[in-house]
């Protein structure tokens, strides 16, 4: 089994030679690396040079107990056939990170715009972070775990005094 993961281990070796990362081969064709956010752009440029030219998605995970947002970049390499996952953590109180628009251009732009809208993460260097779906939204970013969406819906749409709507408060 170890032999068959040669190309996956090679990716971690190549990255570890230049960056201080915690790398892990999850399984065949799946590689995770965790890096400090200051080195993120340098690593992304390096990974693109390695052949990870397709940014499939960016996602944010909210960890309110830890006080962090975890950013996850999913990169696919058509030549290596490997899905590289780059993870980095941000301070939840001050979620600012450099934009990867400089690396993947328009492909990254729309992902970052959405995450800015739903989690309130600031991507420095992304020029258009205007709301995508939530026009006129003035509440907190709704995908944050401390946003009580059910309570917000009650306030916004339902009336406790209304006989037919009391069920929504039980």
């Amino acid at each position, binding site marked *: 089994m170890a032999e068959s993961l040669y190309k996956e281990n090679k990716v971690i070796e190549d990255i570890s030679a230049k960056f201080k990362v915690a790398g892990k081969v999850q399984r065949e064709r799946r590689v995770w690396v965790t890096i400090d956010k200051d080195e993120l752009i340098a690593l992304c440029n390096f990974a693109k040079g390695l052949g990870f030219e397709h940014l499939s998605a960016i996602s944010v995970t909210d960890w309110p107990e830890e006080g962090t947002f975890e950013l996850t970049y999913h990169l696919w390499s058509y030549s290596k056939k490997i899905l590289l996952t780059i993870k980095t953590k941000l301070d939840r109180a001050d979620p600012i990170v450099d934009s990867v628009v400089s690396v993947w251009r328009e492909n990254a732009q729309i992902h970052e715009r959405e995450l800015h809208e739903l989690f309130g993460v600031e991507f420095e260097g992304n020029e258009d972070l205007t709301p995508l779906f939530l026009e006129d939204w003035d509440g907190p970013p709704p995908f944050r775990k401390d946003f009580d969406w059910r309570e917000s*819906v009650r306030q916004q749409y339902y009336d406790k005094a209304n006989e037919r709507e009391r069920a929504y408060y039980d």
Partner: protein
Amino acid sequence: MVEQATKMKRLINAIWIFNWFNSCGFCELVPLVGSRWDMERFGMIITGTPRHADVLFIAGYQTLKSIKRAQVIYEQMPDPKAVIALGACTMSGGMYWDSYNTIKRLADYIPVNIYIPGCPPRPEAVFEACMKIFHHVGAVPPHGRKFAKAHRG
């Protein structure tokens, strides 16, 4: 009321429809388009623009963003016009009753003439609603200036 219905029938000979469907909305109407229920035999045609439509079909949940577009579409339709809301989502929010981003009662935003319950509604129910448009004319507040006087009276 009967007079109104006759008037409406004269104005609308065939029901031309404009669809404004979100999410799974169109699966509620799609059986009607096919040959099995075939709505065209009743003169019901889906138009490409709200300016040619008599009836606006709204189905699926409406988000806070899409409801604004729906209102613009409604305003573009010529009088007399009717709105038929299909499915549970338009009535109470349906399975999105606790979503922060969808509206809960369509009638708060657009004057709805008839709701068709169901998730999805049966095609027969849609046909019945279209037939009832004419009978409901007197009972619902008319929107166009042609009916404004009759409404006050």
